[in-house]
C-alpha cells in the first residue's frame, strides 16, 4: 500500500532533528518566559492563596446551601406569600451574620499560621547567618592571634640570642683577663726564681768564711 520506505521516513526525521533555533531567539524566548513567570508570581502574591480561597468557597457554599434549605423549608411551610424585599433583607442579614465571623476567624487563623511560618523561616535564616558570622569572626580572631603570637615569639628569641651572645663575650673577656694575669704572675715568679738562683750561685763561688776558732 505504501510507497514510502522506512529509510525515507528516518531520513526525514533525521533532517528534522538537525533543526536548531539560533542562540538569539533561544535567549529571547527564555527571557520572555522568565519575565512572564516573574509577573505571574508577583500577581499571585497579591491575591489570597488558593488553599484559603478554596476553603472560603467551601464555607460560603455550605452557608448558602443551609440558608437556601431554610428558605425552601420556610417557603413550603409558610401560609402566606413572602414579601421579596423582606426576604432579601433577611437573607442578606442571615448570610452576613453566618458568614462574616467564620470568614474572619478563618482569615485570622490562616494569616496567623502563615505569619508564624514566615517568622520561623526568618528566625532560622537569622540563626544560620549569625552562626556563619560568629564562625567567620572566630576564624579571623584566631588568625590574628596566631600571627601576633608568632611575631612575639620571634622577637623574644632574637632578644634571647642577643643576651646569650653578650654573656659569651663577657665570659671570653674574663677568661682572657685571667690568662693575662696568670701569664704576668708566671713571668714574675720566673724572674724571682732566676735572681734567687743567681744569688745562690754567687754564694757557692765565694766559698765558706774561715772560722777563727779553728786557727
Amino acid at each position, binding site marked *: *500500500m*505504501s*510507497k*514510502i*520506505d*522506512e529509510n525515507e*521516513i*528516518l531520513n*526525514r*526525521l*533525521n*533532517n*528534522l*532533528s*538537525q*533543526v*536548531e*533555533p*539560533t542562540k538569539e*531567539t*533561544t535567549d*529571547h*524566548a*527564555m527571557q*520572555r*518566559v*522568565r519575565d*512572564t*513567570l516573574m509577573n*505571574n508570581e508577583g500577581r499571585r502574591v497579591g491575591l489570597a492563596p488558593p488553599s484559603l480561597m478554596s476553603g472560603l468557597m467551601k464555607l460560603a457554599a455550605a452557608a448558602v446551601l443551609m440558608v437556601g434549605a431554610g428558605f425552601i423549608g420556610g417557603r413550603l411551610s409558610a401560609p402566606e406569600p413572602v414579601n421579596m424585599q423582606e426576604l432579601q433583607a433577611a437573607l442578606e442579614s442571615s448570610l452576613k451574620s453566618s458568614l462574616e465571623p467564620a470568614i474572619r476567624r478563618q482569615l485570622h487563623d490562616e494569616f496567623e499560621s502563615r505569619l508564624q511560618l514566615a517568622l520561623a523561616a526568618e528566625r532560622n535564616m537569622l540563626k544560620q547567618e549569625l552562626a556563619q558570622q560568629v564562625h567567620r569572626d572566630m576564624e579571623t580572631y584566631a588568625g590574628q592571634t596566631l600571627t601576633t603570637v608568632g611575631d612575639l615569639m620571634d622577637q623574644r628569641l632574637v632578644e634571647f640570642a642577643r643576651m646569650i651572645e653578650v654573656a659569651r663575650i663577657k665570659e671570653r673577656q674574663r677568661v682572657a683577663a685571667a690568662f693575662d694575669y696568670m701569664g704576668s704572675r708566671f713571668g714574675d715568679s720566673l724572674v724571682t726564681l732566676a735572681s734567687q738562683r743567681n744569688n745562690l750561685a754567687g754564694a757557692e763561688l765565694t766559698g765558706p768564711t774561715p772560722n777563727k776558732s779553728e786557727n
Partner: protein
Amino acid sequence: MDKSGADLYALLTRLTLREEVAEELMQELFIKLNKSRGTGNAANLEAYARRAAINLAFDWRRSQKQTTLPLGQVAEPASNDDSPLGKLVHSEEIQQTLDAVGRLKKASREVLVMRYLQQESYDNIAEQLGKTSHQVRALCSRAIRNLRDVLGSNEHKSSKKEIHNV
C-alpha cells in the same frame, strides 16, 4: 528552566518549524507547568515538561489545520530561506511527516519524537516513560510502521485527488 529551557525551545521549534510559534508555545508551556499541580508530583520534571511540550506542539498543528486561512493571510514563516530551518519549512514532505506523527497514538508519538527528533537513547527514554528498554524499542519500530502507513495512505489519497482533478 535554565537547565532544560533551551532544549524545550529547540524541540518546539522542530515540531512547529516556526520560531515565533515555538516562543509562544514555550510561554504557554511554562505558564501551564507553573499552574499545574501535577508538576510538583511528577517524578521526573524534565520528562514531564517534554511530554507537555510535545502535546502542545501537536495540538497547535491540529488547530492550524482546522483554521484554514485565506491565502493572503497566511503568515510567512519567520526564518531565512537559506537556513536549514527555512529549507525544511518549505518542504512539503517534512510538513506531511510532522502531521502524520501528530496523527499517531500518544505513546508512539512521544517515543518517536524522543528517539528520532531528540536523538535520545533507548535507555534514557525507557527511564523517562517508566518502561523497559525492550518495550521502547518495540514501540519505536511499531511507531515507524504506523507512520509509514499513515504517510502511505496520505500519498494514496493525494494521488487519487490529482487523478480526479485531471
